[in-house]
Each structure stands twice: as structure tokens, then as C-alpha cells.
């Protein structure tokens, strides 16, 4: 079956010749018309549209956006804050970068609509420190929008006021975790908070109710406000509505970003047709489908079970290539759709070395607050690095697994899971390669194999 055509909603203008990131260009393309209409509606109506849309968060967890908004404590009398999570830092993910740099007003319009719907008077865009130009572009765009009465006091002649400020991070991955982000925005180390009681919807920024949404999610909100929740819910598949931006990197002919109706494209179509398949003379070996913490898939493995299609339960028997790229299908086969970052590895890659690379990342980025994560991520890095650069032992696979198994469920935030899933899944899928590594490393590396650690 041929791959479906791309449906570019969020990336409609990305890389379009002549499209610039200033207000005039955005307005020429119909920009801010949706906000103008939105402020004439009741905020509750907009929230209902988002609930109807089935929109799931695009930052990684896939939590329904309408439900998140529904949890906000509106009775406390405290101000409600909205934070745009533009910390995009999950390895393999690079979609928000293009929205911020090339179409910042789309994000600002989506943000203002979301703020209006939730009666937010102050929003912050938390952007990762490594996007210095992105931060300046957003600041300039906000200034333009403010001058045009689209952001700031009494927008568009209404009594509604809302300010947006850009806040830069400083190179810490953990700031993508929403409670770590809030700590960071409060001027502290980004040590995530424990839930309960610190659910952002109740006790978030400055202990006030807070909504934290991903950049792409807020852009979808703009589309939903424009076309209605029902229309949005008809794109994609039930439970996985709207479009998804996939970021493909690693060993394929055409890496890049591709937007499809959610759940309509399989992993095989995405990699082989859309991205042109493996590099010449190579075979695909493994793929991480949703950012580096998602569990790895091995080409050649099969997944069997029952799944719900409409009201019926049907059998499925999938190879890696057959898996539909949606939250639920990827969840069913033991991995996740996460942030949409698809990292592809071909047969030149040794999996011990690939894991060593990932472990070095998580060890560097653990905030250090919880012992199992701080120590576990460090030891997983030390073991895999030693295997590559020092002595490798056949029993290292079991040792790695025992370290990884002691982390998840024992930490304040999901980083514990994120750092242990790669090790757990690499050993589960490529255990033989780990046990045979002491022998394998004596042999010559395949031509073109890159150093990974």
C-alpha cells in the first residue's frame, strides 16, 4: 500500500519560498483571523472544542489537551498561568525548532487563543537555551503582535488582557519535564516536583494553577478554534486525532520532518517510501520510534495480539514495518509515539555502542535528585562506555539489566523510566549482541561505521 499524502496543517508554511517570520507575512496568509473570532466567543466554548477534538499533547506523553485544561483549578481565585514548553530536547525531536524559527506567529496565535479560553493573563514561553535565535525571533514576533494589539492589554479592543514573555533555559534536558520547567522558571535548579501534590493544574508556577503545553499542541489549538473540534477529530484515527509531525533522523536517505494524519502511515511507509529507505548497500536494523527514551524496535521482530477496531476486537500480526505510527499502536507493541522523533539505525551500527551513546546522554542529564536515577544512569553509562573502550564481559548484559530494572517507578519524575527503557529494550531485543560483544569488538568494524561513544 502506498504511503498517504502529507497533510500539512502545522507545517503548512514551513520551507515555503517567500514565507517570512514577520507579522505582515503571517497576516497576509490569514494570520490572527482565528484569534479575532475566538475573542468574540465564550471561553468555555473554546475549551469544549478542544475537548471534542480529542487533541493529545505533542510533547511526549500524549495526554489529552482538553482533559489537561479541564483539571485546572478555577475556583482558587489565584491567577492561572500558561507555559509554552519550547524546551524541545528529547533526542531525535526537532519539529518545534522549525515552528519557532519560521512561523512564530502561528505559535503566538495558538497561545493567545489558549490563554483566552482559560482566562490566563500571563503566559511564558520557556525556550531551550540552545535556540538563541529562536528566542530573539519569538521576542520580536511578540513585540510585533503587541504593537498590533494582538498581545498585551485589552487585545483587539476587548476587555481581555494577556502578556507573553520569553524565558530562556540554559542547557538542561530535564526542563522539558513540566514540573522541572516550572522550578526553572521560578529561578531554581530544575528538580522536578513530586505529584501529588504538585500537579501543575493546581499547584504550578508560584503555587498557582498552571497549564504547560507543547509548541505543536498550541498550534493545533489554533486549527481547532478555526475549524472546530469535530472537524479536527475527523483527521487521523479515533483516539489519535489530527496530524502528527514525524522527525526522522539517522540512517535513511531523506531524513527530515513529515506531517501526516495521525495513525494513517505505517513505520515502513514512513521510512521506506517517504524517507527513501536505507542508505545504499545497507539494511535497516533498528528504530527508536518516539524520541531516544522510547523502547527500541528490531527489524525482523513480530508483534501479535488483539486490538480494537471500531467496536470489534481483531487480531494483528505486525512486523516493524506494519506498525501504524500512532500513540495507541506503538503503545501496544511496547514502545511509544512520544514526541515523534524517529531515530533509524542500519546494519553498520553496533547496538552496544549505540546504547553507550544514549546512556551518556541520560547520565549527563539526570538532575541528581533521586538516587536510583542519578546513580543508575551513571553506572549504565560507565558500564557501556567501559564495554566499548575498555574490557567487555559477557555478563555485562545481565549487570546492565539489573541496574536498569531498579530505576523505574522509584523516582519523582518520568526520567527514571526514560533513562532505563533504552537499556532494558536494547538488552531485550539485542541481548546476544551484548553477550557476544567481547568477541565482536576484536573483529573489524563494518566500513562506514561511525564512532558513537
Amino acid at each position: 500500500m502506498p504511503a498517504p499524502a502529507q497533510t500539512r496543517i502545522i507545517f503548512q508554511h514551513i520551507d515555503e519560498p517567500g514565507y517570512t517570520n514577520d507579522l505582515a507575512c503571517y497576516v497576509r496568509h490569514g494570520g490572527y483571523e482565528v484569534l479575532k473570532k475566538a475573542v468574540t466567543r465564550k471561553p468555555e466554548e473554546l475549551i469544549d472544542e478542544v475537548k471534542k477534538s480529542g487533541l493529545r499533547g505533542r510533547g511526549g506523553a500524549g495526554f489529552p489537551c482538553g482533559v489537561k485544561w479541564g483539571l485546572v483549578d478555577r475556583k482558587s481565585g489565584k491567577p492561572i498561568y500558561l507555559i509554552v514548553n519550547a524546551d524541545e530536547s528529547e533526542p531525535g525531536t526537532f519539529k518545534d525548532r522549525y515552528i519557532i524559527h519560521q512561523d512564530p506567529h502561528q505559535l503566538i496565535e495558538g497561545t493567545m487563543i489558549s490563554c483566552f479560553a482559560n482566562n490566563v493573563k500571563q503566559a511564558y514561553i520557556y525556550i531551550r537555551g540552545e535556540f538563541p535565535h529562536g528566542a530573539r525571533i519569538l521576542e520580536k514576533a511578540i513585540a510585533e503582535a503587541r504593537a498590533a494589539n494582538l498581545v498585551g492589554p485589552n487585545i483587539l479592543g476587548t476587555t481581555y488582557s494577556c502578556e507573553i514573555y520569553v524565558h530562556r533555559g540554559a542547557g538542561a534536558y530535564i526542563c522539558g519535564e513540566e514540573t522541572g520547567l516550572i522550578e526553572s522558571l521560578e529561578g531554581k535548579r530544575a528538580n522536578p516536583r513530586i505529584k501529588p501534590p504538585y500537579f501543575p493544574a493546581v499547584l504550578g508556577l508560584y503555587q498557582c494553577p498552571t497549564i504547560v503545553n507543547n509548541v505543536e499542541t498550541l498550534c493545533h489549538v489554533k486549527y481547532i478554534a478555526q475549524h472546530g473540534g469535530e472537524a479536527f477529530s475527523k483527521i487521523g484515527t479515533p483516539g489519535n486525532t489530527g496530524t502528527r509531525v514525524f522527525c526522522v533522523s539517522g540512517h535513511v536517505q531523506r531524513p527530515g520532518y513529515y506531517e501526516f494524519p495521525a495513525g494513517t502511515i505505517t513505520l515502513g511507509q514512513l521510512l521506506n517510501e517517504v524517507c527513501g529507505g536505507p542508505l545504499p548497500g545497507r539494511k535497516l536494523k533498528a528504530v527508536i520510534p518516539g524520541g531516544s527514551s522510547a523502547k527500541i524496535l528490531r527489524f525482523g521482530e513480530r508483534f501479535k495480539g488483539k486490538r480494537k477496531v471500531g467496536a470489534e476486537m481483531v487480531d494483528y500480526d505486525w512486523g516493524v514495518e506494519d506498525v501504524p505510527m500512532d500513540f495507541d499502536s506503538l503503545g501496544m507493541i511496547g514502545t511509544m509515539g512520544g514526541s515523534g522523533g524517529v531515530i533509524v539505525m542500519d546494519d553498520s551500527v553496533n547496538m552496544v555502542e549505540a546504547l553507550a551513546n544514549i546512556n551518556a546522554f541520560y547520565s549527563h542529564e539526570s538532575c541528581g535528585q533521586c538516587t536510583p536515577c542519578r546513580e543508575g544512569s551513571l553506572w549504565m553509562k560507565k558500564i557501556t562506555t567501559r564495554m566499548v573502550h575498555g574490557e567487555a564481559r559477557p555478563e555485562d548484559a545481565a549487570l546492565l539489566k539489573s541496574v536498569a530494572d531498579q530505576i523505574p517507578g522509584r523516582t519523582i519524575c518520568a526520567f527514571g523510566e526514560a533513562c532505563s527503557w533504552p537499556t532494558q529494550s536494547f538488552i531485550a531485543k539485542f541481548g546476544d549482541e551484548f553477550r557476544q560483544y567481547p568477541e565482536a569488538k576484536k573483529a573489524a568494524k563494518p566500513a562506514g561505521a561511525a564512532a558513537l561513544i
Partner: protein
Amino acid sequence: MNLKPETHSRIDEVITHYPERRSATLPLLHLIQEDLGHIPEEAIPWVATKLGLQPINVYEVITFYPMFRRKPIGRRHIKVCRTLSCALLGGYKTCAAFEQEFNTHLGEVSPDGEVTVEFVECLASCGTAPVVLIDDDLHEKVDVAKAKQLSDQIKAEAAQRR
């Protein structure tokens, strides 16, 4: 603190963005580092006083976030992405090429004072790997040849200044 007048005014402005002054810790540190190239020791009590904090509150932030540095670096800052997607396409070779071009080691100031080469974690441009951030500018698909070309450019600019 010997900061440019413009930095002082930006500091005063940014503090107004937040209902609690402590939130301005990261922005202030960024502004100081942009002005001075690094965050000197005296900045710690200075920021603390400015925001009504204890020096430890500022110190613990500086030591937590990888982008804040307490020592001067070379004139140009070359950050090579180390993470998986870039490594798969030769990021380690790219990094070694920069080290060789400037006769330096990771994290050190090169002998001519021109650059500091560093490995950093994911820069979120995995589709154009390997990527390198030189000061504020992202360079994409930087293989060894392009690393040499970028190095030559930096060297030429340095020679012009002399």
C-alpha cells in the same frame, strides 16, 4: 559589576517580567554571560542582592545548568552535538576535526585563544546531522570537510583582526 549600561537596563527590564524576582535568575545570568563572556565570581553576590536572594541560590543555579560557565572561553565557542543522531552520521569525527584544526582539546581554550571546542548534548536539529553551534549560529550537515571549511573561516577572521 562592570557591565555595559545596556546590560544594566536590560536587567532592570527583565525583572519586571515576573511577579517574583527570583524568576529572573536565569535571565540575569544569561545577560551577564553575554556581556562578559562568562560569569565571574563577583556576579554571584551581585545577582543575589539584585534579586533578594542568598548567594547559594545563585551559585546552585550556575552549577546546575550546563550553559553557564564560570571561566572565560575562547573568542568563538564551537559546540558539536554528541547525541545519537549526530553521532550516527559522524559527529565524533566532526568534533575531532575541530580539535585538530585548532590544536586543542575538549573544553579548553585553544593555544591561540581563538576557540573553545565542546561536545554538547542534542541541539534538536537531528534531521540535518551532524550539527554544530558556533556562538549563536547553527551549522548543519557538518562533516569533516565542512568542519575544516568553518575552521578556515574562523582563522581568516582572526587573521584579519590582527
